């Protein structure tokens, strides 16, 4: 079977799944009618459980709501346990079969296509299904006439092959996990329909052969993200979070769209291969000193990436996106969708090579986001929020790598991160599942022996993300740090920020592990009664991902270790995708073996230090953090409240621009627009009155005066018409005689 020409089928399978759910989902999973109404009745909780979330971004001063948030989940789950568990219809099994099955099919086809791709000499394969947007002629910026046409076409190259394997592979595991995790929830078919739809759009995104089609997938995954964040739509916070994600992403998308349009104007095409060919043809100089049109394009694309990939300043939606079910957080908001920005920037590598200034911006934003989010993650108490900030931070790493020109490293980190972050999220979901919806780590602890599989898999994930040698996170993160240090684009500052972030990462992950699994149990007694390990449908994906988290990194072992070509497979595989002169130059950066060893040792040391401190703080002496919080209250408050960024945005944009603008626009509407309308109305009435007066007196007057004159003149003549026939006859005779007289006398 020639899988390469069947790559169009890969996105089609999940679309079929979504379509089936749309058509038959309700039949397969009938809903009990009253449940939404009951769930809406969740009352605010009065104890302090809700405090971990009491600074809900976007609606800080809404007190009831703050409290509700912490416990809604618990209540939903409790409620679901109580009422729905026994009523889960048997036909749900079909949904469990169809939806993950479709993704599995996609994965098999992806695998086949990638294997066949590796046998091609050029390792690039493009198919064009049909013309999607037919040729539209336009004038380029340089005055040439070009034609804009977009194909419904797919491009499989090393970069997109990595992406489709991650999306379908990890997507399949998370689908399997979700069959177990969502079993107690309403809207089972709705969830899986959206999930499959997401996979479809994500595959469109990574397989598209031009920016326009990529944008379709880009917006599609945004839509699915919105739908799934707001999956528990009866909760206001979930709906708000969905809207926030959607709106913040639109800001980025505006940048993307502008970049794309400008690319069309400057380069005349949005097809990846065309763009790359145009840029590497030598017609374009690198914009090192000037800020030219290429820089604007690259900046626009990067702004799009900051929205989708949650970089500063558009990262604010991602922590809130944790309102969605945990599999959603794992799949969309950790492993795949949020990496779309990294993919898109990596896809534009040929462009970025020519715009070093934008690369600097990318690296700076990435590094800043990495450390910024990591510091927030230090003090969060919601288990999913810690992971959310961790995700933002890790995405920052990827952008740091992109910004120093180490594109393959960014994709490598994307790859390894997909494993361990999906794993961590799924484990946190398993913990939440076990505790019946509890997300606050202050109400966990000591779960190690109660849910051993979850504990061990999460341990593996945490070790992987912390950067302990031998696991996935170490290899990719260390390569990023090394590139940040050694690449011509890099600098010691970037390296140091990355290193500090690595330490913070290790710390907050071990804080999470300690608060959740070790020490004394702080679980509420009524919850503790039925803590249970998750069903196989959930822990099998966990174990699989844990294995992946261990071994994924061995595809990119540092050259320094001298293990041979096979252990640098990832870089070699991606090389054709980023083949350009500048990348070659970047790789030649000062390679000093001893320096690299030292840096590696430092980064391992700082990870171990972070782990040790966390263990010491939260396991041995839990009173220390409290003491520190008391000592540096304002700093803790600053971190705890996420640097008040949400409040600042609320003040500036929501209340400032949006509401203030609304007020101004309202006033404008009332006074200027309405005034104009009313004024026009008044003017019309006035002019019509004028017109009436004119008609009555002038037009009618003229007519009447005319008739009056005629009447006046005709009056004497009228007198002749006496009605007497003989007088008429006399006039005739007189007239006749007059003519006769004239005729005779002439």
């Amino acid at each position: 079977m020639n899988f390469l020409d069947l790559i169009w089928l890969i996105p089609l399978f999940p679309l079929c799944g979504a379509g089936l759910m749309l058509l038959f989902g309700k039949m397969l999973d009938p809903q009990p009618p009253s449940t939404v109404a009951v769930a809406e009745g969740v009352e605010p909780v009065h104890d302090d459980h809700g405090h971990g979330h009491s600074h809900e971004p976007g609606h800080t001063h809404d007190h009831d709501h703050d409290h509700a948030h912490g416990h809604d989940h618990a209540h939903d789950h409790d409620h679901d346990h109580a009422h729905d568990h026994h009523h889960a219809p048997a036909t749900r099994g079909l949904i469990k079969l169809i939806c993950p099955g479709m993704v599995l099919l996609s994965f098999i086809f992806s695998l086949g296509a990638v294997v066949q791709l590796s046998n091609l000499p050029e390792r690039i394969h493009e198919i064009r299904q049909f013309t999607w947007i037919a040729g539209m002629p336009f004038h380029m910026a340089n005055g040439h006439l070009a034609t804009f046409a977009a194909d419904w076409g797919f491009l499989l190259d090393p970069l997109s092959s990595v992406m489709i394997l991650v999306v379908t592979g990890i997507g399949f595991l998370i689908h399997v996990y979700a069959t177990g995790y969502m079993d107690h929830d309403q809207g089972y078919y709705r969830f899986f329909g959206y999930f499959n739809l997401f996979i479809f759009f994500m595959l469109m995104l990574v397989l598209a052969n031009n920016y326009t089609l990529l944008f379709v997938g880009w917006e599609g995954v945004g839509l699915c993200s919105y739908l799934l964040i707001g999956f528990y739509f009866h909760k206001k916070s979930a709906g708000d979070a969905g809207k926030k994600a959607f709106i913040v992403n639109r800001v980025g998308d505006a940048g993307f769209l502008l970049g794309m349009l400008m690319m069309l104007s400057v380069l005349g095409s949005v097809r990846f291969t065309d763009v790359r060919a145009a840029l590497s043809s030598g017609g374009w100089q690198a914009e090192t000193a000037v800020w030219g049109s290429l820089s604007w394009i690259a900046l626009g694309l990067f702004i799009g990436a900051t929205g989708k990939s949650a970089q500063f300043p558009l990262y604010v939606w991602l922590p809130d996106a944790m309102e969605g079910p945990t599999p959603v957080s794992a799949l969309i908001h950790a492993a795949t969708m949020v990496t779309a920005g990294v993919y898109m920037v990596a896809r534009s590598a040929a462009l970025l090579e020519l715009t070093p200034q934008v690369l600097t911006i990318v690296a700076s934003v990435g590094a800043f986001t990495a450390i910024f989010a990591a510091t927030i993650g230090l003090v969060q108490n919601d288990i999913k929020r810690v992971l959310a900030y961790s995700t933002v931070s890790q995405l920052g790493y990827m952008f740091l790598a992109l910004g120093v020109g180490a594109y393959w490293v960014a994709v490598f980190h994307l790859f390894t991160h997909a494993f361990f972050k999906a794993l961590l999220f799924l484990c946190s979901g398993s913990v939440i599942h076990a505790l019946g919806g509890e997300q606050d780590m202050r109400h966990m602890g000591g779960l190690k022996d109660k849910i051993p599989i979850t504990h061990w898999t999460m341990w593996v994930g945490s070790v992987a993300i912390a950067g302990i040698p031998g696991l996935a996170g170490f290899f990719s993160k260390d390569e990023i740090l090394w590139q940040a240090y050694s690449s011509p684009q890099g600098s010691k500052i970037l390296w140091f920020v990355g290193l500090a972030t690595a330490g913070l990462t290790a710390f907050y992950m071990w804080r999470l592990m300690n608060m959740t699994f070790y020490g004394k149990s702080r679980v509420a007694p009524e919850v503790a009664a039925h803590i249970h390990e998750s069903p196989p449908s959930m822990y099998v994906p966990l174990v699989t991902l844990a294995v992946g988290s261990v071994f994924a990194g061995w595809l990119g072992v540092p050259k320094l270790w001298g293990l041979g070509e096979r252990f640098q497979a990832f870089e070699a595989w991606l090389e054709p995708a980023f083949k350009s002169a500048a990348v070659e130059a970047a790789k030649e950066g000062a390679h000093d073996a001893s320096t690299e060893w030292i840096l590696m040792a430092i980064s391992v040391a700082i990870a171990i230090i972070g782990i040790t401190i966390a263990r010491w703080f939260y396991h041995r002496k839990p009173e220390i953090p409290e003491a520190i919080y008391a000592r540096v209250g304002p700093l803790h408050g600053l971190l705890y409240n996420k640097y008040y960024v949400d409040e600042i945005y609320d003040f500036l944009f929501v209340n400032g621009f949006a509401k203030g603008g609304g007020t101004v626009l309202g006033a404008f509407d009332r006074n200027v627009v309405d005034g104009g309308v009313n004024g026009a109305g008044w003017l019309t009435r006035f002019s019509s009155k004028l017109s009436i007066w004119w008609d009555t007196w002038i037009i009618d007057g003229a007519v009447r005066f005319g008739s009056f004159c005629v009447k006046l003149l005709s009056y004497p003549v009228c007198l002749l018409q006496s009605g007497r026939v003989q007088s008429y006859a006399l006039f005739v005779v007189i007239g006749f005689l007059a003519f006769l007289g004239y005729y005779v006398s002439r």
Partner: protein
Amino acid sequence: MQISETHYLVVSVALLLIGTVGVLTRRNIVIILMSIELILNAVNINLITFSQAWKNMGGQIFAIFVITDAVAEAAVGLGILIALFRNKETVLADEVDLLKW
């Protein structure tokens, strides 16, 4: 004395004048109608005279048409007169001014 065309024409003119004066001066509609007959007959004499003089039969034929016309006109006129008399109890022209403006 030879009777020439002039004599006929004189008679014709005389008849015309008598008829005209009759139409203009008499009050009785019957007499007015009779005077109209006189005028028409004056015309007839004229037509016959010139027909005879120029040896053209057209004049005589035309005269017969005029006589027919006179008959029709008298019939209509007398009809109107009877209708008028029934409504207004008068046959005097100066007492009827229905066509006044």
